[in-house]
């Protein structure tokens, strides 16, 4: 169960009218290494992972949802007042035809979100390694978006998110170490 706090995890300010950035940001919304994929992946792995790391997955999955909300806010702000003409110029013409200015879970190339982005192997080590990889890929994606963006206010929020990916990656690595630790009492049955 969750309690909702009606504010963003970190402020989102967009200072330039540049709908093309929305096209890039949507990768983090509904892309393979985006926030939705991350949140759903961790939320789902929680059930079959050793209890020592369940709490970690819950925490990070929850935070990923708050990141998703930040990304949604960015995309919304960048597109809400854009004319169809502007959207077309930004490469979002086909998007506009499909969705008007509604947000949709798809990647930057327009492929809709799919559950195949999420793996659950059941082997705790394999699952956590995937989580580490996903965080690193998300970090790289944020970097590529920052490289393409010259909106300093937006980049400020993106840098916050990039930093969080690094923190999550570190925490998953810690979880692997916890699972690797020798157990003092060996249960033979």
């Amino acid at each position, binding site marked *: 169960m969750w309690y909702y706090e009606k504010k963003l995890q970190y402020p989102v300010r967009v200072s330039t009218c540049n709908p093309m950035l929305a096209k890039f940001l949507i990768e983090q919304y509904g892309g393979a290494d985006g926030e939705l994929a991350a949140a759903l992946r961790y939320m789902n792995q929680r059930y079959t992972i050793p*209890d020592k790391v369940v709490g970690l997955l819950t925490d990070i999955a929850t935070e990923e949802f708050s990141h998703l909300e930040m990304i949604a806010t960015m995309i919304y702000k960048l597109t809400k007042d854009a004319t169809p003409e502007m959207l077309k110029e930004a490469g979002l013409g086909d998007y506009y035809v499909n969705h008007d200015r509604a947000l949709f879970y798809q990647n930057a190339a327009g492929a809709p979100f799919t559950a195949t982005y999420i793996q659950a192997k059941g082997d705790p*080590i394999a699952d956590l390694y995937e989580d580490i990889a996903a965080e690193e890929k998300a970090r790289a994606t944020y970097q590529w978006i920052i490289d393409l963006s010259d909106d300093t206010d937006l980049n400020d929020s993106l840098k916050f998110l990039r930093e969080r990916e690094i923190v999550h990656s570190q925490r998953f690595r810690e979880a692997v170490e916890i699972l690797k630790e*020798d157990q003092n009492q*060996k249960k*033979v*049955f």
Partner: protein
Amino acid sequence: MFSQYKYWMPYISPFDPCKPIKVKSYATPPQLYMGFQPPNLPQFATPKEALRAGTLWPALFSAYPNPHNGGVKND
């Protein structure tokens, strides 16, 4: 003591429909602790031994499936 399998006891609810599996295990095979394979890692003395173990290197041998559970997969 080092073990290639770790064990944990998941929460069991009094309302669980099936007979509980009280202890669950997961594999922590040797390569997890090796990082990457060092050069000139000693190999089994004979091909026969290597074939039997399923690996050329004793240090990378792992007994799948879990020998502590009667060889049952997915315990």
